[in-house]
């Protein structure tokens, strides 16, 4: 290093710049991770590419069946086609495509359904821009979106709230969405996960638990709900940051807390790091986790047997119901893979929207917000497919004469816009996830 007098000035400039650039870089990190809410799905390893990407795939040929020349009903969808949650976007798209083909086989009063899909880039700003285009330019009265809870809320607060557009989120599980009754969602709230976890841990006979959670809205809200619900002592409860290179401090403190049950509310990469550090430190404990810590990438990157016996609660479609099984069969025939529950949520979003449109007197937000809850609400004849529900409506039935049972669950939105969700309890056995139980949310 040169030792002349300009040295100090250089240092200062450098410090400023590194600080500034660091901040810029960090702010980038924050916004990409902010959406949080939705973990990966345990039973799914298929992040493979899917040819059909959004947009205009389903446009055109209006009125080709039924001989009616009126154009298709157009609704909008904001999806994560790119960005950190793009894997969800791919899963959604398959569910949406399958649902659209089911709807358009029958038609809605002789017209087709068309979905304009826009990309949120998995971020709030992208989501708002996409929703603004759909609502303000395309004028859609019904908006499906979005994946990340933060994105869904951002769209609701800056685009949808105050208009009569109906918003139905396909994948958001964040707890605070419950506070916005106008924002419907198809996936169950994380609160039911927290309740289920607290019950499971108590049932397993642990009266002390150590919790670590990822330091964002998702981790915090899920953990707070858990602490409220859990009867025993939470002897350790500390957040950790994402993307750290070592969590050995966290796990040694968890070990030091003396609790035999450890609960992890974090993401796969962070959890895999922790498991490896637990293994190489030789600690032993009974693990529990929220849905976001499960995934094939966790199994692949942790030592064989290191998480055996761990229990995880994941949002799940009622996979034992006949309704779901026929959906899974169709899905497998179409895409040569098993559906994820996230695809099932997206599928139900489209079917629910189509039924709301058919039951409504006119294609406006006001009319749809009246029917969207009623077609899948508990009143009326129970049906499990669009074709059956559509028949009742075509025969002069009103929205209350139909109770569509979704492939992801009975739906039945409550007054907060949350569905009755199903949760599956997974246990790790021989380093594989095995479903051991179902819980109704």
């Amino acid at each position: 290093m040169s030792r002349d007098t300009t040295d100090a000035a250089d240092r200062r400039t450098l410090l400023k710049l590194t600080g500034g650039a660091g901040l810029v870089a960090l702010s980038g990190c924050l916004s990409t991770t902010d959406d949080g809410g939705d973990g990966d799905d345990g039973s799914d390893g298929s992040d493979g590419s899917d040819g059909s990407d959004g947009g205009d795939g389903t446009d055109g040929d209006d009125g080709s069946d039924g001989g009616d020349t009126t154009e298709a009903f157009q609704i909008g969808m904001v999806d994560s086609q790119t960005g950190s949650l793009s894997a969800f976007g791919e899963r959604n798209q398959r569910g949406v495509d399958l649902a659209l083909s089911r709807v358009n086989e029958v038609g809605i009063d002789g017209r087709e359904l068309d979905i304009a899909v826009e990309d949120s880039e998995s971020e709030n700003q992208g989501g708002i821009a996409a929703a603004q285009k759909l609502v303000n330019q395309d004028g859609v009265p019904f908006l499906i979106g979005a994946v990340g809870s933060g994105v869904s809320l951002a769209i609701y607060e800056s685009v949808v709230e105050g208009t009569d557009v109906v918003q139905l989120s396909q994948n958001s599980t964040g707890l605070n969405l419950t506070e916005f009754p106008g924002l419907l969602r198809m996936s169950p709230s994380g609160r039911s996960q927290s309740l289920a976890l607290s019950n499971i841990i108590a049932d397993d006979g642990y009266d002390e638990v150590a919790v670590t959670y990822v330091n964002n809205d998702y981790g915090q809200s899920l953990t707070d709900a858990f602490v409220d619900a859990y009867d025993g002592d939470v002897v350790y409860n500390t957040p950790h940051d994402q993307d750290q290179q070592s969590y050995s401090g966290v796990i040694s403190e968890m070990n030091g807390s003396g609790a035999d049950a450890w609960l992890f509310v974090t993401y796969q990469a962070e959890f895999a790091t922790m498991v490896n550090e637990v293994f190489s430190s030789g600690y032993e404990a009974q693990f529990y986790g929220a849905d976001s810590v499960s995934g094939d990438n966790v199994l692949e990157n942790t030592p064989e047997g290191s998480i055996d016996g761990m229990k995880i609660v994941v949002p799940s479609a009622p996979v034992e119901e006949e309704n779901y099984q026929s959906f899974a069969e169709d899905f497998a025939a179409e895409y040569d893979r098993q559906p994820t529950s996230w695809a099932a949520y997206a599928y139900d979003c489209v079917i629910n929207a189509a039924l709301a449109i058919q039951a409504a007197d006119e294609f406006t937000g006001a009319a749809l917000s009246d029917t969207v809850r009623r077609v899948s609400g508990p009143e009326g004849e129970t049906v499990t497919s669009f074709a059956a529900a559509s028949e009742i409506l075509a025969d002069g039935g009103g929205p209350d004469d139909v109770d569509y049972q979704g492939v992801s669950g009975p739906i039945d939105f409550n007054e907060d816009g949350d569905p009755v969700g199903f949760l599956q309890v997974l246990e790790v056995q021989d380093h594989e996830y095995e479903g051991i139980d179902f819980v109704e949310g």
Partner: protein
Amino acid sequence: MTVIGYLANGLVFSSIIVLGSIGLSLVYSIADFANFAHGDTMTIGAYASLVTFGAVGGLGGAVLGLPYGFFVALVVGIAAAAAVAVITERVIYEPLDVDSIGLLITSIGIAFVYRALIQIRFGSDFTRFDIQPLRPIEALVPYGVRVTLHDVAIVVSAAVLVVGLHVLLQYTDLGRKMRAMADNPDLARVSGIRTRRVKLWTWVIGAGLAGAGGVFLGLFNQLSPRMGFNLLLVIFAAVILGGIGSVYGAMAGGFLIGMINQLTPFFSDVVEALPIWPGWLARLLESLISIEYANAIAFVIMVAVLLVRPNGIAGEGAT
């Protein structure tokens, strides 16, 4: 866990940071700009060795729980990181006629390019070396030290590299030329040193060490396209703490930052145990000195050191 246990963890983590920070400081002293692509150079080293290790396999025997093939992969990782850095220097940094600030901004762009290329090839998900993870060394567990043979291998390898660099800088012709150039590039040039060649060697050494750091980081934790970038802020802190441009300062800074980071749980134990008065101060300290603020605590200590020694620990000494 005991103090020795935390210190042992700190030593392992420090080794990786030291490898990263030396290269950053070296490049700063000779090429005269802060290279923001340094973290992603580490990532390149890690992924190059991942591919190599996948191709060559274990090659029979093992040292310190690591198959021979891993060491081959380590060498390839170092070479790949050095090669990429040299090519970048030749193709981009050298032809660019801008000042050090311009180069700094350029390097941020380069960092994005590196990361994008890795992401295109390997996807954004994380992965690990296909090496059986080890349990802690039994003999040390009674002392509260929970390290694996792999951790020992990381520390030993880092020590070998650091000592090698020391010998190179102090006792070889190239080392003398590098020190001369760091002190005064114009004078070095006038006195017949081929500065361009020395600069290239600096890149080779700096990026090579970063590559090694990346490989060890992958072994210690996991590989992901953001691994190096996520560590970069800590590495910068280490370099600035040590006195930017000074190799020995970077070693000291990296060591301190890594230690403080891993010792945070111990600090919070100490704060809880100490009879601090008044009570509100004790509560405040207890909530602030907590594992979630490990990096922040390391940075606060960095600022404190800089207030006392504005040029960093080794700020007055040259390379």
